[in-house]
């Protein structure tokens, strides 16, 4: 179980790292190379984004990566196969991240069956609030997969509790309003929000959006269980190639 895995890891490490990559960007071979170096550098779990043409929750860096991957012909089929291969090769949990249309067109049941069969642990679907996801929730549960839901600073307490009641594995707390990839000021201003998140659920908490360096990760120690690094690793790959990823990850903790 994902939650058990996370709890076990948390006995050894104060904070876990989850990274995010866009599959097929710049190509699938590079994606696999990036996964390999991330795992080697000690990443605890990964989200693999299946590119979509209308990624409304993503900022410039990930948006660009989505478009380039699609332009290079990244198909849903190829992404599913990639996930299966990664899960078979590496000993950490993998999640798919994508927008709901990708699952909807593929067939939610078929998508979940593929995930289960391929050894994936769950999915993050940022444009699917639990209210719209009755089918999805049921299907994920049926396959023993983890639907990862999202808390935001704009979410009232009552709704945090509702979302928590649908969540499995962990909850993804976005650190601020806005899209991925913009700067976040990790300061005491976040404490109130993170405390609200903590009160709303017993599940482990992941915090993402704007985590870029060791200082950010240090700030989250003791307040969250998982730091999520998304756009920054993509920037590193763009600037210095897949080879630079390992050192970057190692520098975070």
């Amino acid at each position, binding site marked *: 179980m994902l939650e058990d895995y996370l709890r076990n890891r948390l006995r050894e490490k104060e904070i876990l790292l989850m990274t995010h990559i866009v599959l097929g960007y710049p190509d699938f071979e590079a994606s696999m190379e990036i996964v390999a170096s991330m795992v080697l550098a000690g990443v605890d779990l990964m989200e693999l984004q299946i590119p979509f043409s209308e990624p409304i929750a993503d900022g410039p860096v990930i948006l660009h990566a989505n478009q380039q991957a699609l332009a290079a012909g990244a198909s849903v089929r190829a992404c599913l196969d990639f996930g299966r291969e990664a899960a078979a090769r590496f000993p950490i949990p993998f999640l798919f991240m994508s927008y709901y249309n990708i699952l909807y067109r593929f067939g939610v049941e078929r998508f979940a069956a593929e995930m289960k069969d391929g050894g994936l642990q769950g999915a993050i679907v940022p*444009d699917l609030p639990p209210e719209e996801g009755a089918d999805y929730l049921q299907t994920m549960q049926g396959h023993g997969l983890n639907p990862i839901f999202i808390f935001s600073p704009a979410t009232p307490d009552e709704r945090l509790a509702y*979302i928590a009641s649908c969540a499995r594995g962990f909850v993804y707390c976005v650190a601020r309003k806005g899209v991925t990839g913009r700067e976040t000021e990790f300061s005491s201003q976040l404490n109130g929000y993170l405390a609200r998140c903590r009160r709303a659920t017993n599940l482990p908490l992941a915090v993402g959006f704007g985590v870029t360096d060791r200082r950010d990760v240090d700030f989250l120690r003791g307040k969250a269980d998982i730091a999520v690094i998304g756009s920054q690793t993509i920037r590193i790959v763009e600037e210095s190639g897949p080879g630079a990823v390992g050192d970057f990850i190692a520098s975070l903790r």
Partner: protein
Amino acid sequence: MKHRGYYGQFGGCYVPEVLTATLEQLEAAFNTARSDPAFWAEYVRVMGEYSCRPTPLTYAENLTRHFGGARIYIKREDLNHTGAHKANNVMGQGLLVKRMGKKRVIAETGAGQHGVATATMAARCGFSCTIYMGALDVLRQRPNVFWMERLGARVVPVNEGSRILKDAINEALRDWVTNMDDTHYVLGTACGPHPFPEMVAWFQSIIGREAREQIQRITGALPKRIYACVGGGSNACGIFLPFLDDDIELVGVEAGGRGIETGQHAARLSAPGASEGVAQGYKTFFLQDDDGQMRETHSVAAGLDYVGVSPILADLHQKGRVRFESATDTEVVQALELTMRTEGLIPALESSHAFVQAFKEAPHLSPDESIIINQSGRGDKDIFTVADAFEDPAWRDFIVSTARRYTNA
């Protein structure tokens, strides 16, 4: 969140969590306004003072004679301030923004019509205003960009995706998820997450409410059919909805582009190319590939060049209550030419789609029957696009010589 804006199986509210509270707040403000008769009265008053409402219903005597069938009436949304029905939605949302106490508005625009309308509203209401516009559209629609900027709006060209309307919507949503505390997103059509389809359709229903009263006063009866072009679907919803319970045929006309068989079109409901999907916050028929990636669309009319369609119309399509047809670019230019020559009216290229289908059907109806065409906007404002569509050689020379003059200056 109880009612999430479903029309049959379409609609809904598929947005990132961070927007949920904002949409709930908007829904609450909208519901309060809608149940307050003073709000609608205020809206009607503003539209009368600022935008020539009620717009006339014009009897097209010459076109009627030309086709020798049904009597043709034209609902003149082109006479709105800024030249299209977009003004209705924009002023309505502006009144709501005042009630919500927000100070900044953002909008997407394709052709620029909705952007210009939003910029006028923002200027009048004292809001700061940012308009997102696909970079390709910025190039194609410079005159509207000029007006938006003169009106005090900031126009942001969107260089992502296919750099057209849908990409401008995505970018506006990205701004909104960041700045929703003081910012309202003035969505321009009856699409997007709940409550937008319902709210935009409600403001636009002023078209149909007037037309219903006018046609009965003029002809003593309801029309046989009503024709409207369908981009996102707001002018069509606006004229159709007040007639929904009547025994009359409602016809939506989509962009057939270079022909359905070429794949270069924006026909989502009138042809089999589209399929159900979820994007831009709602569920409807989208032009997409098997993986669910959105396809490129094409129309001579930028305002119809969109991958999705109002969930309200998708539902009415499925229920068989509205019939959908398409008109090709070529047919559209011909209908526009005929309308100009016979009536001296200049419909927008978007609106001309509705004229095409009405012209095909009018001869088969009886002179005792009447039909209404919704002229959603005026074409003279889009002189660059229309002149291009007509491939007018003298216009071309004029542009070339003007360019030369600028280059030498």
